């Protein structure tokens, strides 16, 4: 196996985690703004 492939095999998971983190944070921010606009609880 090529070294870069092996490196990517290990590092792809934190990159994926970062992607999910961004998606979730953006979604919660959107929900928070909507909740404030509609004067209701976020949860």
């Amino acid at each position, binding site marked *: *196996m090529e*070294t*870069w492939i*092996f*490196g990517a*095999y*290990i*590092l792809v*998971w*934190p990159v*994926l*985690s*970062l*992607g*999910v*983190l961004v*998606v*979730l*944070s*953006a*979604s*919660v*921010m*959107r*929900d928070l703004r909507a909740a404030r606009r509609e004067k209701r*609880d*976020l*949860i």
Partner: protein
Amino acid sequence: MTDTGFYQFSPLTILLLLAAFYGGTYLLTLLIKSDRQGTDAFMVANHRVGFGMGAASMTATWIWAASFYAAATSGYTYGLSGPLHYGLWGALMILFIYPFGQRFRKLAPNGHTLGELIHARHGASSQLILAFSNVLGSLISLMVNFTAAGALVSVLSPLSFQTGVIIAGIGVLSYTLTSGFRASVFTDFAQLVALMAIAVVIIPAVLFAMGGPGTIMDGMSTLTAEQQNLFSMDAILNQGAPYFVAVLAYAIGNQTISQRLFAVNEKHIKRTFVTATVGYAAIVIGLGMIGLMAVSAGIEPVNGDMNNLIPQVVSTYLPPVFIALFFILVIGSLSSTADSDLSALSAIVMADVYGKNIAKDNADPKKMLLIGRVTMIVATVCGLVFASFALDILVMLVFVGALWGAIVFPVIASCYWNRITNAAFTWAVVVALIMFCVARFDLLPMQGFTALLFEFLAAIGGGVVIGLMAFGFFGVRIGAIAGVIAFLATAWFGFHFLRDYTVLMASLTAYGVSTLVCVAISLASNQRFDFDEIGRRVNNYDDAGAPDLTKGTATAQ
């Protein structure tokens, strides 16, 4: 660093870290308005949790302390494919349940627990079997998470194991007690953000502190051929397959998942659970890679205990600030799961025990909330006591796993097939458990006709597992075809072979037997069930004026 191989924080530092974590979490929960607290909010946040919060909560709940340790152990033991065979199948537990979750929501829009739905479908005995399995599972989970807190505190500081257990128990209870499930979901988001951010930093940090991909690659040459093989049969048969078999069982048997299926805004169920699947896989497989890196670097776990592996690697290769981050990572993961278990247990006692079996649907909402909070306190005390005694839970774990496996077909079939009866459900579980025990504990010598019989039953179980998974996504026809193909394949490869893999064969036997018994007894009955009854029988417990979700307000936002 001590001669044990672990970095040691001072007691004050550890106490400050714990105070910052639990204090911060508690302050967060003060943002939740307690004047809007009804039983529905306490158990399922009024069925209106948004996508971001829901996905974060599902991910954080499913990641417990053991996830990291087990994934790393798998990486250390099975090499290249090891982390995948832990993290991937664990992630699929979240993915494969959502099509069934959509069905549960359609049948019981006002539901709080899966037990309520089964009570409406069959009555008390089936419901209490499910509730009992849920309670056992959550109590075990609580105990394991508190134990992990005690172990971590005692490894990274001079503080005792019991100190860590007690602080974790009181910390989790303090922020969950007032707002219940809402607090659990709200804090899960914050805990997951911290958890992911730390994982994103720690995994590359360990890789490059060990010398980078090139150095680890060189170390790979010292591993066995199986450890170097991404498609290792050793890893598949000993780690992947038994875990794969449990995919539906863990999801059905766990109230923490069904609670979120009932809580998430109905139109967001699919993307919530798909995102949680990816999030869980990324974090757990990523941290499992530390095990792979450790075995490649020739690290031996201290005292031969695999649970020491990650703390040992972090202590050896990273500066103290990273060790503190790792400490928060583990405390965050175990706390998010423990608060979900407390919420799950309180919902089961509130709805399944008090609501359905004591108050008989005339529940007093105030009394119900009190019961929920008292349940949380009792459950925490039980978790602390069990964790402090460091009980051997292996037998209990085996039993709960079998129970979950045995209820999968009866629960799912009860939601789709109108001929399943209460007797079929109950006897299917009882007979499957007995046959599981025979196979798992070698109560009969596994040779000759006996072994062939159990391999046949296991092959049926294999067909049921694959068939149900395909059915969830593609419907009856594809499910049946996939099930038959899986049965034939398992029979072809399994005869004279499965008997050597006791755990796998026993698990598959539980699925196969429960399906056979459930179908046979149901076919012998003329009973037919009207599924619309479930929606009428599962209601909100709050006073009149609470939204009636059977009228379609579940998706209104």
